[in-house]
């Protein structure tokens, strides 16, 4: 074989599956039929492209072929309902849809996948499936849930979209802030699960991080005037910039202060910081922008901890949560000393999370209260599900009480 192989089709699949499904869903009025048509088109591409070469506009070719396949299919099936659909399709002679229209379709698909009437887990799975083009098996694997569970989630969510008539539409202006928040939350959830996997051996699931960044880039392209969209993208890029430095060669978590900055991705740092500056000029701060600003400060070491505390004050006002308060306490400890940080931490209640005892343990260690620090490390170790975090905590635990060994 001399022409492009399956890898070329695969690359087009990853980059254009979502847009093709988005366009076809509008044409067919049905997500399942759209997916089927797009998959038919890719199957055809696998047959033809190796001999005929990749067409000049692969994404346009996929959409046009999917549309023709859909027409073939409804003609074959030819019930009253599908004949009506065929008529609709034929009315639209469909020159390759222009970019503006595709953009609207892609937004419609995103808002439909992230509709608040769907369960959060279903929103994540649907978005990765329909917008990201991941297979059900890939999504199941990424979240460590059985494939059957993921498949059922997706089937049920699509049935609800169809039966309850969740509209295929970008929300009206008045609902946009709320609904956009839902879309951003899905992308952020994909990233956080990838960034620090809640269980498993690896700290980072690169595939999920990359997928989240891709979704965030797509959102920023589709909604370039929404500061929170840019804020989320900046936050993810700055996080991604440190990925190589976050895990030691032995697979142990490396906290920010101990990271080798030469391992940071300078391009991602620059892009993230530039986005943060653009957000600041808009002067419409939201939680993602403030978190991105905090990460931007950390990307310019040594960080200005007073500024970090001020940003956490702001974030706490926007989204009061014990996790934000815990991070603020860490910053306060850098400005006013570990005792001041510890007083704040001890006022917090965050059951079942390893983060609070881990921070407490570190502050106690720095205060020289070794026995209490060891006990706090033990609590953190009992709660941490990720192997890289556990390795880090176990080593620190051993440092505060060498005679006890590595703890749990």
């Amino acid at each position, binding site marked *: 074989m001399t022409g492009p192989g399956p890898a070329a089709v695969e690359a087009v699949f990853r980059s254009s599956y979502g847009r093709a499904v988005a366009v076809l869903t509008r044409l067919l009025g049905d997500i399942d039929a759209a997916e089927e048509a797009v998959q038919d088109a890719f199957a055809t591409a696998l047959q033809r492209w190796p001999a005929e070469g990749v067409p000049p506009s692969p994404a346009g070719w996929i959409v046009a072929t999917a549309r023709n396949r859909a027409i073939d299919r409804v003609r074959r099936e030819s019930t009253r309902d599908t004949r009506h659909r065929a008529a609709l399709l034929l009315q639209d002679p469909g020159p390759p849809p222009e970019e503006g229209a595709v953009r609207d379709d892609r937004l419609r698909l995103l808002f439909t996948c992230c509709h608040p*009437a769907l369960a959060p887990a279903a929103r994540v799975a649907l978005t990765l499936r329909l917008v990201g083009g991941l297979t059900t098996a890939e999504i199941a694997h990424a979240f460590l849930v059985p494939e059957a569970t993921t498949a059922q989630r997706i089937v049920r969510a699509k049935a609800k979209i169809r039966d*309850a*008539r*969740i*509209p295929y*539409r970008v*929300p009206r202006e008045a609902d946009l802030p709320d609904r956009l928040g839902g879309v951003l939350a899905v992308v952020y959830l994909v990233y956080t699960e990838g960034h620090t996997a809640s269980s498993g051996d690896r700290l980072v699931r690169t595939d999920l991080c990359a997928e989240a960044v891709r979704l965030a880039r797509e959102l920023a392209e589709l909604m370039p005037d929404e500061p929170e969209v840019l804020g989320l993208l900046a936050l993810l890029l700055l996080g991604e910039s440190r990925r190589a430095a976050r895990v030691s060669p032995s697979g142990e978590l490396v906290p920010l202060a101990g990271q080798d900055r030469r391992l940071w991705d300078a391009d991602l740092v620059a892009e993230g910081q530039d986005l943060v500056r653009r957000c600041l000029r808009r002067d419409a701060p939201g939680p993602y922008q403030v978190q991105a600003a905090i990460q931007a400060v950390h990307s310019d070491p040594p960080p200005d901890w007073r500024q970090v505390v001020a940003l956490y004050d702001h974030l706490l006002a926007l989204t009061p949560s014990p996790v934000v308060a815990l991070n603020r306490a860490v910053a306060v400890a850098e400005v006013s000393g570990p005792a001041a940080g510890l007083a704040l931490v001890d006022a917090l209640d965050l059951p079942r999370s390893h983060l609070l005892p881990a921070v407490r343990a570190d502050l106690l260690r720095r205060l020289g209260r070794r026995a209490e620090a060891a006990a706090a490390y033990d609590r953190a170790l009992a709660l941490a599900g990720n192997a890289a975090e556990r390795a880090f905590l176990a080593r620190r635990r051993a440092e505060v009480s060498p005679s006890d060994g590595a703890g749990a």
Partner: protein
Amino acid sequence: MAQYLLSIQQPAGDPPAPEVLGPIMRDVTRVDDEIRAAGAWVFAAALFPPATATVLRPAGDDVLVTDGPYAEGKEHVGGFTVVDVPDLDAALEWGRRLARATTLPVEVRPVAGNGV
């Protein structure tokens, strides 16, 4: 257009005192008027308490009659409205207003087959 059942989930126990219930009923009536004015109204009803219900069960060729309700629960359907609207977002908007007016949870459920 599609029809949706908006059912009001009422907690078990005595209804609120008249001075509380009065303003609530005024608000509910206002929402009902708005649904009619928008041309979305299909049907609406408030229900007597579950203790007034009677249950019928098929048993062989017979049908058994027993005192209700069918299921005892902490909540029950206290009333409902059926609306005819273009899509779920429109149904959720009426549901949101009904929840605010009744101060109670509202379940929005699509009617199968367009209510025909």
